[in-house]
């Protein structure tokens, strides 16, 4: 029987119960697996936990005022449910949260808590910022077994430290989030996508750089494994029409340009967001690499010197989704030596448990930064009860 099977999982119905559960774990030296729907269970370091904390019952919308651009909900609310509600009001999370079902073999896109804890943004990152830029406030139970709140429901707020930022992308290692408040934004009236075909990676990277540096306000710039280079424009109809024409002129040196209308464009970008261009075969490792956008092609060329890969390049070259073929390991050394040359970071997004246990999943940090991160972990969770060693090895 594995650890997970004999472990008990608790599913509190209130924030107070979450708090009691953490206190119980502290007293009884338990180590908690904090989760919503476990959609990203196989991302990050494998954990040795003794019990589970299922937050999916902390669901439901507490606050939604479309005209104030604010939404607050339980951390266990499903992303699908919230996105439906937003869509009914012609609004959205502007950072375009991905659904990783294709890559990870999940049935759902997870919860708001999971979305915030992992902090992954989609293609609109280049224009709209990341998850952390849209979290306005949070309530959570820290590893000390204490309920705390931070931030608020207004966009402009500099009162005290911005704790929602440090909770975002902390993979549940600092606190179990119970309630989250977000800035939400109107959906654009329409969108169009310009499609260039047959460019090599370096040329595509240059074309995307040119487009992103122009006045047309590109909201998505990606290069697909099938050598399509795609650029999205969103906004009110007359604006999109005029910007499509402008961008066609700007990119005329790159050959024929197709233009996709709203429906086809939306489908294309949903696929890019969800990384459909890579295979769903769990056996082949996938890296998620963030580099300076104009260095995307360089990073990829360096990696291709050593490895047989399929790559989806998003964020104008700044984000590389990399699938490695025909290797028995995740090839961390080759990937990380590339990052050392370009700057940025690489996350081992999909790999066998053995690979994830055997090498760093997240970018290793220089000593002083690693020590500071460790101290940040300790002030929130001194005994290491929450998602122990999910991100980094911990001193205990």
């Amino acid at each position, binding site marked *: 029987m594995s650890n997970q099977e004999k472990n*008990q*999982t608790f*599913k509190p119905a209130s924030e107070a119960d979450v708090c*009691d559960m953490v*206190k*119980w774990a502290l*007293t*009884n030296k338990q180590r908690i697996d904090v989760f919503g729907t476990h959609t990203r269970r196989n991302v990050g370091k494998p954990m040795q936990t003794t019990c589970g904390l299922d937050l999916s019952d902390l669901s439901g919308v507490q606050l939604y*005022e479309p*005209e104030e*651009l*604010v939404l607050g909900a339980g951390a266990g609310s499903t992303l699908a449910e919230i996105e439906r509600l937003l869509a009914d009001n*012609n609004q959205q999370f502007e950072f375009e949260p991905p659904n990783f079902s294709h890559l990870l073999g999940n049935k759902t896109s997870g919860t708001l808590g999971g979305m915030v804890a992992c902090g992954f943004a989609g293609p609109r990152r280049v224009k709209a910022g990341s998850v*952390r*830029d849209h979290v306005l406030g949070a309530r959570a139970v820290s590893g000390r077994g*204490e*309920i*705390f709140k*931070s931030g*608020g429901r*207004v*966009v*402009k*707020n*500099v*009162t*005290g*430290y*911005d*704790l929602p*930022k*440090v909770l*975002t*992308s*902390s993979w549940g290692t600092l606190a179990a989030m119970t309630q989250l408040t977000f800035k939400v934004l*109107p959906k654009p009236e329409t969108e169009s996508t310009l499609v260039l075909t047959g460019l090599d990676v370096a040329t595509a990277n240059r074309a995307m750089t040119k487009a992103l540096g*122009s006045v*047309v*306000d590109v909201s998505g710039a990606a290069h697909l494994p099938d050598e399509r280079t795609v650029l999205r424009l969103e*906004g*009110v109809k*007359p*604006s999109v029409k*005029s910007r499509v024409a402008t961008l066609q002129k700007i990119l005329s040196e790159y050959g024929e340009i197709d233009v996709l209308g709203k429906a086809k464009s939306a489908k294309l970008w949903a696929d890019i967001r969800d990384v459909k261009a890579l295979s769903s075969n769990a056996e082949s490792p996938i890296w998620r690499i*963030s580099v*300076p*956008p104009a260095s995307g092609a360089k990073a990829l060329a360096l990696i291709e010197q050593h490895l047989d890969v399929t790559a989806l390049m998003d*964020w104008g070259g*700044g984000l590389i989704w990399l699938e490695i073929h025909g290797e028995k390991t995740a090839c961390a050394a080759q990937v990380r030596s590339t990052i050392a040359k370009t700057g*940025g970071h690489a996350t081992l997004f999909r790999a066998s448990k053995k690979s994830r246990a055997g090498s760093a999943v997240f*970018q290793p940090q220089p000593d*002083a*930064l690693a020590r500071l*991160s460790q*101290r*940040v*972990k300790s*002030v*929130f969770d*001194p005994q290491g009860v929450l998602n122990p060693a999910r991100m980094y090895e911990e001193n205990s």
Partner: protein
Amino acid sequence: MTHLKMPDVNQHSLDSRQKIISDLQAICPGEAVISHENEMRAFESDGLTAYRQIPLVVVLPQTTEQVSQVLKYCHDNDIRVVPRGAGTSLSGGALPLEDGVLLGMGKFNKILDIDYDNRCVTVEPGVTNLGITHAVEAQGFYYAPDPSSQIACSIGGNIAENSGGVHSLKYGLTTNNVLGFEVVLITGEVIQIGGKHMDSEGYDLMGILTGSEGLLGVITKVTVRILRKPETARALLIGFPSSENAGQCVADVISSGVIAAGMEMMDKPAIHAAEDFVHAGYPLDVEALLIVELDGPEVEVDHLIDAVSKIAHDNKAVSVLASTNEEERLNFWAGRKAAFPAVGRISPDYYCMDGTIPRHQLPTVLSRMAEMSAKYDLRVANVFHAGDGNMHPLILYDANVPGELEKTEEFGADILKLCVEVGGVLTGEHGVGVEKRDLMPAMFSQTDMEHQQRLKCAFDAKGLLNPGKVFPQLYHCAEMGKMHISGGKLPFPDIPRF
């Protein structure tokens, strides 16, 4: 000066002053150490001039290495440090301490790298906010956050305070526009966070340091993203018979899916003061005035100007003017931009507040503020970043009238408590500093604040960086780190398990 309790003075630092001066001179040779009282006067306060204090000594390092050595020296010798950028803070964030070294970052004034391909600029923290835009505007780029002090305020100070501006609804605050920085901890350790890439990995320490008001570290280098300047910008100047109408108009604009580059509201006293001062042509027979700015491609801006004009008419606007050229647009803004000095003309002194409220609470807050104004017998004029709910009530007073400053501060505190009461926050963009420090419990429980203060312990276990700011009480980190765990039994036996 009103009474403000600062941390108990460290007598040992005062007694060792001469040695500290000579030790700092050894680290930062030349004229980098200022110790004569007359010369230190220039540093005795920031933009919150009601509070003044001559520091123990001023040091103006020039390199990261010097900053690192100064901080390590202070850390090793238990000496307090107050970092300072351009000194434009409105909340007393750079108020010196009698027993503390004032670390001025003014010599860090170089632009290090402009990278148009990656759309970012790397600068030293003493470069002014507007200096970044000036460096890139010839190529059609700019740096988006635009606090009204942008001519003078430094980017390092912007990071410390997470500064905003009139365009923050569409373009974000400082925190949304920083890609990376180099920070020196009080221990002297130099840490790089982020870079030219997006989304630095690990805990978002950049997010914590931004807006930390100089309590966590000293920024020595920063990379910010730059944007292409929109092709055109046009503004609407809209007068309303009531603030309710103006507030509803803002809500309807946003509901219709339009995110304006800026939406600014002024109330009647502010309109009159501004019009008397700059003669911008503001209507004087209205209760509220709204400036809506739209930017982007010409065809988009024209389209949205029509859409917003219609919404304004639907909300009983009595006058709707759309700028047809750049001169007119700037003229619409002239009154708003001069609102603070304009108010300064009609009153010997004014006190600028900075709360944020959920936008729909505006009519309630304005009417409650009018009641308070009567109670305290002090006039108040309001300018309001209507798009994001950030309000700047200006309380008019005369510092020469005994007791009037104290009364003003009390009035201000009441306004901020009201902001929190209606679901808002104490400060939208000016920071807590010393000014709002003692109001923090109005918004945060003891436990909330302890979670923030422990984070400070992770950066500065001895509490030497900018103590006395942001938090009403100082704690020893060791004591705050202790845990008192109770409850050995699983307290909810009947919950579902699987």
